[in-house]
């Protein structure tokens, strides 16, 4: 089983911490620090495996890889194949690359929740869920599209998006029949997307429409 995944930068700042067995927050920080100490002292061109008995108990190992300024660390026990974990790490990084287009540290800092989502699509409860980065990327895309709209865009952009939504949905509506439009608005009500109420009602309607277009059509 995979016990945890940590991303940290070359100064030891954690960028993502995910443990699949509960560790209290203080312990997590301590582990990150001790792992960082070990990683720093590793020479170049040595194997990527580190015995971590002292930190996690018997038979637990770390595998790490450096990508640009980031250390990727997977913590796993003896039921995992060491070499396969390296492959899995490769899948993870590839997927990050796909989702962020040439991922860099800043992407991970500002979109850590998205990185979590990606990781959740690859590893769940310490077990491998999916190894095809295509499939992971599309699943993540499907989940996070509405969220990125609502969470990460500044207000002005949201208005823009709403405007675009307005245009595109108008075009769309022109092509479709009224019946469908009615159905859609009914589903908007059904979903009760209260979150969008901070805009005025028109914007709300169209942004919800946009949301629904993406999700259900």
């Amino acid at each position: 089983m995979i016990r945890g995944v940590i991303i940290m930068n070359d100064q030891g700042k954690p960028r993502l911490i995910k443990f699949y067995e509960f560790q209290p927050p203080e312990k997590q920080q301590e582990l990150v620090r001790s792992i960082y100490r070990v990683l720093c002292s590793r020479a170049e061109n040595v194997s990527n495996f580190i015995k971590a008995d002292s930190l996690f108990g018997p038979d637990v190992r770390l595998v790490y890889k450096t990508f640009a300024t980031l250390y990727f660390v997977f913590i796993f026990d003896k039921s995992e194949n060491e070499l396969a974990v390296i492959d899995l790490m490769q899948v993870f990084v590839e997927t990050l690359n796909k989702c962020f287009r040439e991922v860099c540290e800043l992407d991970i800092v500002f979109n850590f929740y998205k990185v979590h989502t990606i990781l959740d699509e690859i590893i769940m409860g310490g077990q491998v869920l999916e190894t095809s980065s295509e499939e992971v990327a599309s699943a993540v895309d499907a989940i996070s599209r509405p969220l990125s709209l609502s969470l990460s865009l500044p207000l002005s952009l949201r208005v823009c998006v709403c405007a675009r939504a307005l245009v595109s949905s108008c075009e769309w509506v022109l092509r479709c029949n009224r019946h469908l439009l009615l159905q859609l608005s009914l589903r908007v009500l059904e979903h009760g997307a209260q979150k969008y109420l901070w805009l005025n009602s028109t914007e709300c309607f169209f942004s919800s429409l946009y949301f629904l277009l993406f999700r259900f059509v």
Partner: protein
Amino acid sequence: MNPFSSGTRLRDMIRAIRACKTAAEERAVVRKECASIRASISENDQDYMHRNLAKLMFIHMLGYPTHFGQMECLKLIASPGFPEKRIGYLGLMLLLDERQEVLMLVTNSIKQDLNHTNQYIVGLALCALGNICSAEMARDLAPEVERLLQFRDPNIRKKQAALCTIRIIKKVPDLAENFINAAAALLKEKHHGVLITGAQLCTDMCKVSTEAHEHFRKKCLDGVVKLLRDLANSPYAPEYDISGITDPLLHIRLLRLLYVLGQGDADASDTMNDVLAQVATKTETNKNAGNAILYECVATIMNIEDNGGLRVLAVNILGRFLSSRDNNIRYVALNMLMKAISLDSQAVQRHRATILECVKDPDASIRKRALELVYLLVNESNAKPLTKELVDYLEVSDPEFKGDLTAKICSIVEKFSPEKLWYIDQMVKVLSEAGNYVKDEVWHALIVVITNAPNLHGYTVRALYKAVQKSSEQETLVRVAVWCIGEYGEMLVGNAGMLDVEDPITVTEAEAVDLVETAIKCHTSDLTTQAICLVALLKLSSRYPSCAKRINDIVLHQKGSLVLELQQRAIEFNSIIGKHGKIRSALVERMPVLDEATYSGRRAGSVPAVVSTSLGTQPKMSNGVAKPTSAPLVDLLDLSSDDVQTPSSSGGDFLHDLLGVDLSPASPVSGTNNKAPKNGTDALLDLLSVGAPTAQSSSSMLDMLSSEQDNKRSEGLLDNFASLSTSSAHSSSAVSSSSMMDLLDGFGTSSSVPVAETSGPSYPSVVAFESGSLKVTFNFSKEPGNPQTTTIEAQFVNKSPDIYSNFVFQAAVPKFLQLHLEPASGSTLPASGKGSITQKLKVSNSQHGKKSLVMRVRINYKAKDKDVLEDGQISNFPHGL
């Protein structure tokens, strides 16, 4: 709207935290954010809840407390919108854990979401459940998960449900039975994600339930084998490839399932042999992913029931791994070989050369593993070549690796040495390459072996001499060499005991002394080395008479040493060399042969080894008082407790007699030598032994003591030693020949304590002991101000018509008393009560007022040329002593 919560967005907060220069600034920003989040929570501000939670997750990652956001997670999960749910579940997995009570509240929400029509929401709920499910939740939600596991559509959720099931059966193993059929059905799916998770689920179920194990073995084995075969033969499928290999993870999961199914079942193992062989031979090895499959395949082959051919194939794959350029592959191969060695050591032996190469790897962790593996591979037949390789490598290895390497080489050499010559050769090599990394036990053992090989003494001392010339910076080598030169110095100079294999060398006595002098003067030498050097010099002074003067000068030089131990030795040895030429040669005889069995037994039992004490390895002590005083005794006497065996059998009994059963044997000396009772006893045992082979050394010891007494006045440093020597000398004087008495008389008076006999309360005299021929009367007096101590004057009167010569009185007391015997007024007792001998005893009673004195006495004398021994117990002391 809340003025605080509207403030910063997540991105702004991250930016502000990143801009912080110091930890204090960061804390301030976080504190401010937390305050506004709290305010927002208390205002029940729905609009910003998900943003706040996202912030909290970031703050949590930085290690700050975020418990106040836990309830918000639950609220978000319960809200109907997908984005809220999503962030809520994310927060749930990060901020909460399975141990918290709050988690109970979320069970219902998760249950609803598992039954939701939106598959994404179901996905979120499954994901959360798979990550944080507790035992209670597992029981409550198992039916939902089971339903999802069998649900026809959509397919994607099945893999999540499968992993969720793993978590559930790990939490509640009893539930495993319910899932057996569903899990087996997963293996018939087409979707590769479902297959991966299905195989994983089956593997984990086998671990928790034997019933499942049986079921899968019977029903699914063929299916799994077929799956694996199809997979191995399948054409390249780009969508699942990892660096050019199709779906390695699925390969690995299936192999792992076979690993579990084949364990301990010959039939099952038979079924999978073919496919394993196919995977092992067909997989490409130029990619990490391919090697991962091969590695798993090897692990499976090692674990299933024996099939010789496959195992050899597996070990050969590992051998190929070892020559790979990828560090990771070498690393895992070594790990696996370590397991393989117990199964088929012959097959592993074939790759010895490659493994040996790995010992020289630049990667420290690989080196370490390879070394351990080599250590396991060593047997009688290959010990010599392997050791040679390792010793050769020792020369060029990294300093930080030398410690490990040396320890292993020493252990191999000790365990498998076919002959002593080879052992000594290898050890000399190791000592000259890495002497500073050798542990004390190792060179102690070497010395024991050297003493036990009389025909190799000459060879060894010459080899060591040559080695020290080359590498004098290796402390341990210098120690062993100096010790050997001290013992076998004449063989070094005389080229005695030449072996055929060695070249003759010419060493003069002066050169040998040079070596020791360099060692003792070298500023890096530690106390042990210097002490050994001093002893060696003492011995050489007798072996090389021509250099005695020079040696004395070197020894004298150490008189100014700041270390008490060295100073003391220097003074003692100086007086031996200067004043006691007659007995010196006898005093510095060779060490008796050290008993190997006893030595190794000691090592095992971790008893403070007297052997090592006599070798001069006292721990460093700046102001050693008790211990060093006794150690030189043993040193001087040139004996370890091993060779006291003959005398100690008599001496020991003798002492036990004297002391009574309940006494610790050391108590007579413990007054001055509490800290080293064992050593003290050794010395005493020896002193007390009469007519034993060591009597000679005991007399020279007494000789020594008298000179010691002279030094005492000038140096004033050795009080403790002196008092020890007085007490032990007295007990020994009792048994030593009367020719020694004059020596003792000299300082007996000087060290006797003036007693104010007139002061203090007076006690009646008692007849302590009376037999037909002898009467002993005790007179008591006390020193004023010291009620614990009693001075007893014993008066011996001879009632028989014969003259008693060699009259010796001995006494012993229980632990709570301390006894100090002063010399008797004479050793001849005139006949028929015409004269008497008096002797003073000082007794201090540590339990004064609670217990009264008690004493055992033994009297030895010669009457009519016959030895007579009388003994008895005295308990009629007056009260209050």
